[in-house]
């Protein structure tokens, strides 16, 4: 029976997980100078220098259209690797690395979470906890039409 390791984190009160094999490193938000990218979609926090590579930082809460209160002390950037590209995701708090049997991950039911099921690859039920396993590929898929209109309508900051 296969096991899977998930890096779990919190976002707006819910617990999420990303396959550890996708995670490159975890950084404190405070340590990094993020450069704002004008006219980018709202969920793009900016770009940073990761050892000579310029990589984008995505505000995961904004990507999922969640309300969230940031506590900068605990905010972390999870750097994931997807198709040879590095991308940083900001999350409210990183919890732990969870080792579970891959069997306990179930297909996502409709309407399980506040976020669009498009971003979810499964639900892990583990000792009363419910961890939403994310589909990194879909999170990083191109900006959608609606978001373009949103940005354009945003006007001046």
């Amino acid at each position: 029976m296969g096991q899977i390791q998930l890096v779990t984190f919190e976002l707006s009160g819910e617990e999420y997980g990303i396959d550890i094999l996708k995670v490159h490193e975890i950084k404190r938000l405070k340590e990094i100078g993020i450069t704002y990218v004008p006219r980018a979609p709202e969920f793009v926090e900016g770009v940073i220098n990761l050892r000579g590579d310029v990589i984008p930082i995505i505000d995961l809460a904004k990507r999922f259209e969640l309300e969230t209160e940031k506590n900068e002390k605990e905010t972390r950037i999870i750097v994931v690797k997807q198709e040879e590209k590095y991308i940083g995701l900001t999350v409210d708090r990183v919890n732990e690395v969870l080792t579970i049997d891959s069997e306990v991950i179930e297909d996502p039911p409709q309407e399980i979470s506040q976020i669009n099921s498009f971003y979810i690859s499964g639900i892990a039920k583990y000792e009363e906890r419910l961890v939403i396993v994310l589909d990194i590929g879909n999170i990083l898929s191109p900006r959608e039409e609606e978001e373009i209109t949103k940005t354009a309508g945003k006007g001046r900051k």
Partner: protein
Amino acid sequence: MEKIDFEKFKKLFLQEADEQLEVMEKAVMELEENGENRKVIDEFFRMAHSLKGSAGSMGYSAIADLTHQMENVLDKLRNNPGSLNDDITDLLFISIDTLKHLRENVEKDIPEEENPDIQHILERFQDFISIETDGKKKANVEKKIQLTSQELKNLKEKAGENNVLLLCFELIQQQEMQSMMAFLVLNNLKDEGEIVKTFPHHLEEVEGDLPYFSILICTEKKEEDLVKLVEQTLDREEFKVFPLEDIEQGKASDYFQEIKENFSRRDESRDSIRVDIEKVDQLMKLVGELVIDKERLLEISKNIKANSRENSEAQALLQTIPHVDFIATELHESVMDIRMYPVGSIFKRFPRLVRDISKQTGKDIHLEFSGEDTELDRTILQEVFDPLVHLLRNAIDHGIEAPSQREKSGKPSRGTVALNAWQEENNIVIEVKDDGAGIDPEKIKTRALEKGLVTEAQLEEMDQESILELIMEPGFSTSETVNDLSGRGVGMDVVRTNIEKLDGEVEISSEKGNGTSIKIVLPLTLAIVQALMVREKGNDYAIPLSAIFETIAVNGQNYKEVIKTVKNREVVVWRDQVIPLIRLSEFFLLGDSHQEGFLIIGGVKGRMMAIMVEAVIGEQEIVIKSLGDFLGKDKLFGEIPGISGATIKGNGEVALILDIQGILKSFKKGGEAIER
């Protein structure tokens, strides 16, 4: 002897074959164009001979057979001036094409048996050769050597009962195996006696071309034994043996001198080595990192300067940093230089192409070149080849008229297509120019309307240049018939897209009846550029200096003088031109702009603008980091006008690079064009 890596030699063989085929092709073009020429035939012969040698030693018998027969034909041509005719040039063309085919098969590891049948070509060659043949004699030049008197004296002392022999090698047949052969020979000889001297020194370490070398050996063996030994590796005609007396008498000329001359004459790239382009790219990347660190050091040193006059360590550091700065800059330039390649290297592939197209279209074309020495970053050069092919095809297929028609319009029946290249400030311009029919703007208008690319109203407002540029819109193609030449589905839009990817531009000018000129304007290099750092709302942006004409400080005093309002639009009057003013904070939706700051005057001539920023920080070298993974249609960020990439500042943070052209384009699109 190390294990011979066959794959490595195969790669080498393929590389050499490409060059040899290119030279051969050029030679036959020239023979066809300008008739017999001894020098050209000699060059041709030499290449065929080298290719034969290397193919033979690698066991590619089809190539070896064919080149062997070509060699015979060329030799016959050499010895019988005036015997060149169209049949032979055609046959030579066919042979070169066949060789190319065979070369492809080698690359794909297709076994010999599956090669195309070359027998008929060989027979046709044979027909020509057997017509009549004069006896040929190869000039055998006696070559001797001179040593200094001291060296001779030493040698004589050593000689005693031993033989002192000088072996001179001339390896013209097997070009890429030369250094390996030398190594083998030297290795074998080492067991037979003492190697006194070699030319060049450290013979065993030489890599690559080594057409001439010599070995001076002191041995107990007899001359003929030695000859036998060397013959295991090389043919007898490839080397000569001189006894000590010959050297001593020194009667003949200095062989060494002759060798040296041969070295420099034979090939200008004599002292060159082949390097995998990936290694150069890696080097370039490392230099990029160094440049970033250098900028960081410069920044730190500014702070140290102020704080630590007494600290001698700090002072020592301050003295070192400018040197590091200097070295990094020099290193950068040197690496850039390695990547530079003359455009002639791709130009020389075109004569054949033009010949083929003109045969297919029944048009008589004269192809001209200028500026072949103009150098361009290799990566960019590779990317412009396809667009240039397309432009050439277009020029011949659509541009140049049929000979009869040309005569009617009072033009010479032979059309001229020119490929010109030159440097213009920080850009390289490559132009494809023809003296054909030119582009008819009316036809373009009709076509563009038909295809729904523009509206009548839009056409009204367009100037000549913009109308011509319509041919680069996707979906525009004026060719009525789809043919093998221009209708390959690659239109002018692809040309433009490819060039813009390289940060370049395509400019079209044409006069109906008098020909067309299409210019590709390219940046010199892509990796590291000088830039001006500016600041707006707490963020730094880099603007490549190549795009900037001037910066003007704006304050309360000169504000009204510099910035005017025309039709509710802000403009700047700069050197008698009225140019649009774009406030960066407004363009980037960063908030309200300010009254004081700096105007960056930039753009290209005819399309200028002024960008208002809060502050100018200074000039610095920046390393361009692509945002291509994230920026653009259907990518994470989407398309963001005005941003072309990113760079890393001295403090390790990222700064975005502004794209002046992009800002202007997006500004124009917004219908905010400025009239005078």
